[in-house]
Each structure stands twice: as structure tokens, then as C-alpha cells.
């Protein structure tokens, strides 16, 4: 296992794209969070905004970079034929996927933490200037801590979900289309569906809507799922994608 890990780590580390993508993840997340915080202000009569969602808003853009990294981790091997070399060296196909998943999770958790740790204080500072009450922005408070740590986990689960899809689909363009489609289209479709019950069900199974419930710190009673249960939905998607990808990797010729 250690040797597998080392091999996969070497492969990912020596790709020129990896470092750039991780840097892009941090930069994009922070930039979008800061931009979102800058445009929101709070009137004296009250705020309609959830401060945690604003200062962690960049996660919604950063997840696209995470998906790219995850898809490239495996589909790059399929498109170049490298996968055959890999499987000749490590015949345990599921363990190849598991190793890739471990490395990818580690990298995403690390870069995601940096992104969140930079976004939250910067966003908080801006929101305080825009008139948000300081008590709603206590970074060490329970809900805010949950939102921040949950966002890092969210990014890691997006990576695993994308890895599973890419393993199943193999073609990089299709994989990225499927992943981003599943992430971004649910919210749009929910908005278009006039039936409230259908919209609620769609919300509960949507990886992005349910998963980002972990960022909610206000109006928790109005959410169709509790924050951690929402992240659980995304975890279920990631598990299903990885299982499907693993089974297909075992069953098919590479």
C-alpha cells in the first residue's frame, strides 16, 4: 500500500497541472468569497443574508477546479494509455482507485483548508465593515466552525465524486460535463419546477444544494435537511460514484 501511495503521489506530483490547479483552487475560492462579501451589505433593519454562506461563497466556484483535478487524475491515464502501465505494475484495480482517492482527498483537504482559512477571516473583515453585527460572525462559534470545516469536507467529497464519475466515464470531456452538470443543474431545475413538493425532493437529492447545507447558519428550520445530513447526501453520491467507477474498472478492459 505504501508503495502504491508513493507511486500515485509521484505521478500526481510531477504533473505540471496539479500544482497550478491547487493554486487556482485557493485563489478562485478566496477571490470569489471576497467579491461576494464586498457586494453584500446589511441595513439597520436586519440582514437577509447568511454570513457564513457569503464568506464561504467561493466554494461554489472552487469546486469546479476540484472537479477538474479529480477528473484529470484518472482520465489523463486513460487518454494517454498510461492506465495500462499502471495496471500492469499494480494489478489490484480497486486498490489503484483507492490509492488515487486517498492522494486526491489529502491534496483537496490541504488546499481546501488553506482556501477556507483565507476566505473566512477576509470575508468576515469585509462584512464587519458592511454593517454585519459582530456576534453573527464569531469565527470560533459552533455553527460557523461547522460551516468552515464542512466546506473543506464538501470539497473533498466533490473530489471523490468526480473521481468516481471519471473512472466510470473515462473520457475527460464527458466526465467533466457530467460532474458539473450534476452539480450546477439541480439548483437551476429546482428554480424552474413550479411544484413545491417536487422541488423539495430535488433539493434533498441534489449534491450541491444538499451538500452546501453544511454552510447554513441561519434559518436552519427552513432547510429540508439538517446541515450534516445534507453533507451526507453528497457523501452518498461520492460513495455511489466511487463504487460504480471501481466496479467498471474491474469489469472492463483498460
Amino acid at each position, binding site marked *: 500500500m505504501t508503495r502504491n501511495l508513493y507511486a500515485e503521489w509521484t505521478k500526481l506530483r510531477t504533473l505540471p497541472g496539479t500544482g497550478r490547479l491547487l493554486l487556482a483552487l485557493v485563489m478562485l475560492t478566496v477571490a470569489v468569497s471576497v467579491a461576494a462579501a464586498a457586494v453584500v451589505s446589511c441595513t439597520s433593519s436586519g440582514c437577509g443574508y447568511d454570513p457564513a454562506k457569503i464568506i464561504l461563497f467561493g466554494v461554489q466556484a472552487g469546486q469546479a477546479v476540484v472537479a477538474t483535478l479529480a477528473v484529470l487524475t484518472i482520465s489523463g491515464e486513460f487518454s494517454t494509455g498510461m492506465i495500462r502501465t499502471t495496471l500492469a505494475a499494480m494489478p489490484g484495480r480497486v486498490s489503484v482507485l483507492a490509492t488515487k482517492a486517498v492522494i486526491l482527498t489529502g491534496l483537496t483537504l490541504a488546499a481546501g483548508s488553506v482556501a477556507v482559512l483565507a476566505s473566512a477571516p477576509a470575508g468576515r473583515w469585509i462584512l464587519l465593515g458592511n454593517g454585519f453585527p459582530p456576534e453573527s460572525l464569531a469565527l470560533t462559534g459552533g455553527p460557523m466552525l461547522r460551516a468552515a470545516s464542512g466546506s473543506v469536507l464538501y470539497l473533498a467529497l466533490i473530489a471523490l465524486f468526480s473521481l468516481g464519475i471519471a473512472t466510470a466515464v473515462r473520457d475527460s*470531456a464527458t466526465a467533466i460535463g457530467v460532474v458539473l452538470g450534476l452539480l450546477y443543474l439541480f439548483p437551476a431545475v429546482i428554480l424552474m419546477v413550479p411544484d413545491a413538493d417536487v422541488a423539495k425532493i430535488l433539493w434533498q437529492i441534489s449534491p450541491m444544494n444538499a451538500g452546501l447545507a453544511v454552510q447554513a447558519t441561519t434559518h436552519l428550520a427552513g432547510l429540508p435537511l439538517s446541515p450534516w445530513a445534507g453533507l451526507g447526501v453528497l457523501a452518498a453520491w461520492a460513495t455511489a460514484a466511487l463504487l460504480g467507477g471501481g466496479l467498471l474498472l474491474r469489469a472492463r478492459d483498460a
Partner: protein
Amino acid sequence: MTTTVNRSGPGGPARLLRAEWTKFRTVRAWVVAMTAGSLVIVLLGLSSASGSHASCDGGPTEAVCPAVPVGPGGEAVEDKFYFVHRTLAGDGSITVRATSMTGQIRKPDVTPGVRNVVSGLVPWAKAGVMVKQSTRQGSAYAALMVTGAHGVRMQHDFTHDVAGRPGGVSEDSPRWLRLTRSGDTLTGYESTDGTDWAEVGTARLSGLPARVEIGLFAASPGDLTVTRGDLGGSVSAVRFTEATAVFDRVDLEGETSGGAWRNDDIGVTEAPDGSPHHPGRASESGGTFSVTGVGDIAPSIEGQTVERTLTGVLTGLIVVIVVAVTSVTAEYRRGLIRTTLIAVPRRGRMLVAKALTIGTVTFAAGLVATAITLTFGTRILRANGNYILPVSWLTEVRVVVGTAALLAVAAVLALALGALFRRSVGGVITAIVLTVVPHVLATTSVLPDTAARWLLRLTPAAGFAIQQSIPEYAHVLGHYAPIAGFYPLAPWAGFAVLAGYAALALGLAVVRLRRRDA
């Protein structure tokens, strides 16, 4: 054998297009994907339409919704006000002095269940003089009015609004209003003292009959509050308001029939027991009239829009992006690009031919899909009791053709990005982040409306404005935000932003292709 003309020669446009079309058509995955993309648009649209039922009482029995009046221009309107009027035959005029305008607004309850009513006027509360074709809702009219916060206005046929002088009315600063009818032409004048008159505007109501209703009116649109929905989107709530205006020195010129003024509460809604719900009222003593009205005389924006049936377009767009990017990156991956460039040494032309091919294919597939979806989707929605805001056939054609063109131009943008990056992932992700993600963030996220509007002005997602069928009305208070389906740019302006991005990307791709080894 030597008669080959340049146009069909090896590098001629016809040959190039044919070569690119052959490449596209013979890759089964692309044809399948394009067909699937169209099917997704149709199926998502029709299934979401057939799952949407509406009835008007919310109880176990289905009730038919009351008909929404339609104005002279064919748009849905709200035509609800209190009218004190007489019948005028031929030309004539009405002159009044407005001395006061007051009202009540119901605010959100502070203690649940206890009505929280404050005195005040909503900005578009309106009262004044009017000439109207008949008391039928939706009939042609012209009116000169004082408003809650927008000064004197001259409005006609619901969608037209001209500003007069700003300021409100009071005992100390009354406003004189005069509306004259001469054939089809109505002219409004205002004055502060009854001697110096200034023209506010004119309206031509073509086909106005000789006998019209002329008189005093008052109306007050509901107070709007917008909150965010728990599932994304926004929830608008409209609460009761009323406006009372006092007029004196009423002077009617022309041939009026009957001696008495008649009072009509136009369009008043009835409670289940048959009594009027929030009725208006009027009284007269010694030539001074007090008129109280509830409602509005304006285009209605409450209802579903035809473009709501195009739910599947975003999904279709992602499929189109993947196909368009792959159609160029696959050549790089397989090395086919070198063969292509040997056959067509003029690299720019080759890329333009590719763009034309993918654009045309997408446009054709998109047009079929959107035409079917919009035509049948709106029928299904109407059959299920949903109210769809009526629009002219020209607007429907613009939505259908525009959406197909949106897909086609986005495909060209994606293809150009694919040629720039030479890698599918980079191309697909950039195209999606530029076109789909801004739209999703602007319409569904926690972003405030101002930020959402900027996203839809500056990014290629501005092109979605082509789908908006109901315009924004400056004289109707509404939640005109992307979250409610209103785009910051006019339809073709938004489309031009997308087209600009596509042209820029294609230009950069051509330059890059010429300068770099393949």
C-alpha cells in the same frame, strides 16, 4: 478537369465545410450526444410542464381561475380601481383640483395574527382623471394622475407612462389636472394654480368610440416585500394598501348624458360569500369628491412565462459544450489535426469552417428542440390550469430562435476554447464556468440582486437574456431580478455580449493556431 473554380477547390469554403461536416457526421458519439441534448431539452421541458398543476382555491375541488384581463396591446393587465364617472359623447374635457392624497399600508405583522396597518402611500398609488373606452377591464384608457412618490404622470393603455412635474399634493400645494379628448387624441395638462397650464403628454387611442366614460379614479397597488425562499429563488408577498384622494372644482365640458355621477369599483374581487373584498368607496359633498381605491391600472407580471418551459436548456448547453470542445480537441489527441492541416494549409479558414459546422448543427438541433418544447410545453401548462402571461407570436419566435442561437453561439465559444487549450478538460471547464455557472449563481444563490445583475452583464451568460419574454416596466413596482427571471440587459444586447465573447475567443484561437506547431 481544369475547370475547377476556386470556391470548390481544395481550400474553397464549400469543400472545407463539407469536410468538416463529414467529420462531424461520421463520429457516432457526437451525433448521438447532439440528439440526446435535444431530447433532454424536450423531455425535461415537457415533463416539468406536465407535473405542474394549478387551481385557484387550494381546496379539494378544482376551481377555474378567474380570467386575467388583457390590455389593448395584448399583454396581461391588472385593471382594478375605483371610478366615479359619467358618459361623454364626442369631444370634451375634465378639469379637477386635487387637494389631498392619503392612504394606508398593511405592513408585515409584528405580532402574528394582528394586522399592522400604518398610514402612508405606496410610491405608485395613483389618483386623478381618466377617459376610458368602457368600464370593461382591459379596455383602452388615458389618465392623468398624481402619484404617491412619482409626481404627476400621464399614462395610457397600461404600458405607456410619461412623467410630469415631481412632488405630491396637499392643501397648501394643490395640483390642477385637465384631460381633454379630441377624437382619438387625449391630452393631459397640469397646473399649480388653475391658470398657468403645462402640457404633460398626449395619447392616441386608435378606435376610441364616440361614447366614452370620463371621471375621477383612485387606485393603490399592493405593497411588495421580497424574501428569499428556503430552496433558493425568491418569494414575493403583496399586501393590502389603499389610497384616498380629495378633488374639488370639478368641471366637465362636453356632451354628457344623465345627470348623476356613477360609482364603479372596477375589478373588485369577491370574497367566498359574495361580498366585495377590500372595496373602494367614494363620497361627494358640495362639489368636493373623496375617492378611495385599491388595486392598480398596469401591466401584470404575475404568472408563468413561456420561457419557463425551457428548463432543459442549461442541461442541453452542457452537452453541446462537451461535443463542441471534443470536436476540436479529438483531432489533437489523435493527431488528425496534422492531416487536416496538410489538406487545408490555411489554418484560420479551417477553424472557421469547424465553427460554422458546429454552430449550424447546434442551431438546427436546438431550434427543433426549443420549438417543440415551447409549443407543447405551454399547451400542457395551460391544460393543467396554469396561467401563462400572454406574449405576441413575435416574442415567442424570438425566444425559440434566440435560444437556439444562444446554444449555437455558445458552441462556437466552446469550440474556440477547445482550440485554445487543445485539451478537452480545460476547454469544457472554461466554457461551463463562463456560460452555465454565472447563470446558476445569479439565479439560484445567496448573491444579492446587484451582484447577480453584474454577473449577467459581464459574462457570456448575459446571452440568456434572449429568453426573457416579459419586459420590465418602470412604472410597475416588481422584483425585477435575475432570480425572478428578469435580466439586466435587453434581449439582443445580452445576446450580443455572448456573441462578442465567442468572436473574441475564435479570433484568439485562429491567431494561436497560426503561430503554433500542431
